[in-house]
């Protein structure tokens, strides 16, 4: 297994050293809307360097919308999103793409595309028309393939992979992009539990061994609590609670956010909060 080594002189794919407490990505009073329909209004969120943040909340609460705005896929109609203190919509998009990688919810790959070509596409921000496959590109792609454990699938077409393999291929592409910040929109959708854990273990390694800052939308509360440093709970376009998972995942919050009657006990393995559902709320909110 390869490791993420420190950059050699003159190479700059990873980030410069940063203050561990620095805010890398900030949503400042953002208002997000699709046409007339306002999804989020007046929301603030800071993403601190070197942390894994998980965003949880019921379907349709605006989690993915928020993530899209943080990844400048959606322009806020009010407020602003700041990347390293600079307005993300005023930063050249290629510059943003060198700092921030985004994996959309259901990405689309052309038919017949091989895994190697897909992952190599992640190098786009570092390439130019005359520089399409530099040594750095090759190293980054090879390492990304290794990290996600799909090096032996490199020449297979993406559309012939299983769901778990395909998801790892896309994550591999985001890795090859070589950004400090990774935004993952439901990276575990359609995966079995073992593959979910595998993907989240990968996220944890990226964070611990490679110093990546990760924001991800997750549905599974127990996994979110276990694999994140910080949990953000949303409901109806607002942040209801955020902080350490053990402070956020409480029985009262589950009732408020999900309308779920549940017991919260310590996870016997990790000690993080674990949700044991009892049933849905009978009283309406």
């Amino acid at each position, binding site marked *: 297994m390869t490791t993420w080594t420190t950059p050699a002189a003159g190479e700059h794919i990873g980030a410069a050293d940063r203050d561990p407490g620095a805010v890398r990505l900030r949503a400042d009073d953002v208002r997000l809307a699709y*046409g007339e*329909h306002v999804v989020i209004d007046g929301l603030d969120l800071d993403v601190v360097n070197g942390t894994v943040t998980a965003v949880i909340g019921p*379907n*349709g609460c605006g989690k*993915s919308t928020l993530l899209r705005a943080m990844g400048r896929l959606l322009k806020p109609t009010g407020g602003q999103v700041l990347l390293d203190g600079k307005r993300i919509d005023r930063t050249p998009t290629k510059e943003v793409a060198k700092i921030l990688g985004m994996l959309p919810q259901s990405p689309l790959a052309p038919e017949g595309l091989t895994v190697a070509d897909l992952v190599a596409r992640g190098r786009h921000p570092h390439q130019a028309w005359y520089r399409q496959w530099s040594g750095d590109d090759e190293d980054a792609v090879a390492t990304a393939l290794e990290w996600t454990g799909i090096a032996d699938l490199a020449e297979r077409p993406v559309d012939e992979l299983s769901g778990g393999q395909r998801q790892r291929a896309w994550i591999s592409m985001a890795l090859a992009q070589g950004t400090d910040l990774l935004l993952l929109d439901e990276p575990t959708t359609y995966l079995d539990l073992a593959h979910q854990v595998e993907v989240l273990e990968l996220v944890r390694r990226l964070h611990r061994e490679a110093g990546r800052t990760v924001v991800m939308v997750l549905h599974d509360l127990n996994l979110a609590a276990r694999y994140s440093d910080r949990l953000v709970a949303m409901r109806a376009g607002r942040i209801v609670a955020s902080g350490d998972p053990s402070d956020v995942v409480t029985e009262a919050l589950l009732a408020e956010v999900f*309308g779920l009657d549940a017991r919260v006990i310590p996870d016997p393995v990790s000690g993080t909060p674990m949700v044991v559902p009892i049933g849905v*709320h*009978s009283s*309406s*909110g």
Partner: protein
Amino acid sequence: METDGARPTVAARAAGAQAAGMALTALKPRPPAGGSGLRRRRRLTLLGLVVAVVAGSLLSVAVGAKAIPLDTVWHALTAATGTEDDVVVLQLRLPRTLFGLLVGAALGMAGALIQGHTRNPLADPGLLGVNAGAGFLVVVAIYLLGVTTPLGYVWFALLGALAAGVFVFAVGSAGRGGPTPVTLALAGAAVTALLTALTSSVILLDVDTLDAYRFWVVGSLAGRDLEIVAQVWWLLAAGAVIALATAPALNALSLGDDVARSLGFSVGRTRLLGILAITLLAGTATAMCGPIAFLGLVVPHVVRSLTGPDYRWLLPCSAVAGAVLLVLADVLGRIVVRPGELQVGIVLALVGGPFFIALVRRRALAAV
């Protein structure tokens, strides 16, 4: 289509709003999805279409080079006495209207069918090579056999349409996995191009053939013999029956082949029947009055926005809407360049085109 897409469809937006509302009201009992509102809208749509058909037909009988008042029309229909107006109504206008209704209904229904089967909102019956097949055999009939009347074209056009449709389907289904939307569409485009080229080479050999063909290919209801209807009505009826009978299967198919199969539908048989119905309906319509391309593309889009994607409603409503649109287009063609007339195929394209573009612009069209 994802709910959080940059430009969500109206439906998705509504669903998003509904979801947000649900979050606020936690777990209030939810009204049944797509509830009674849709059902009422479908009924109103069908009712409105039927009214429109009657009104359109009356217009079609009354309007023309010689305008005939409605009471005279009524007189001709109920108690004809052989006046000039009676003759015009009974001998010219009535057959022409009947033609328009049948052809429009057939094309509307065929359009809905092919968009469902190819899961491609760009699909048009012409995509299966039906028009090109009909056109080629018509040209052959003109060139080799000297056929020059619409009645004479009918069986050649029909044969060409059916052969082209079946051939496209066969090629589209070859290879592993059977027919898929993409292979069908590509095979159709290839066969259309091939047949059009063959047609052109015949036309370029002989100016007389070109002369006859250019009037056939614009698509017109003028001067059609009722005898044609007597010969081919049963083909239209068979196509419509097959189409309606496969509507539930088509509903399942629109969720994907795998879902349809797991719901117990035979995907292969449904496709085969669907292609048969499309070739019967579109082929016969083309045989009756030449290629009319735009109808089958536009009508299902419009109707789908009113009835939703349920093919049990979509198919009959598309048929009625197609009939209305064709008859009205024909009426318009008789008015705009009086005393001459603009062929209905051209009117449809010139009126339907902007309409279709407006529709495309107004909202993100739901994928079929």
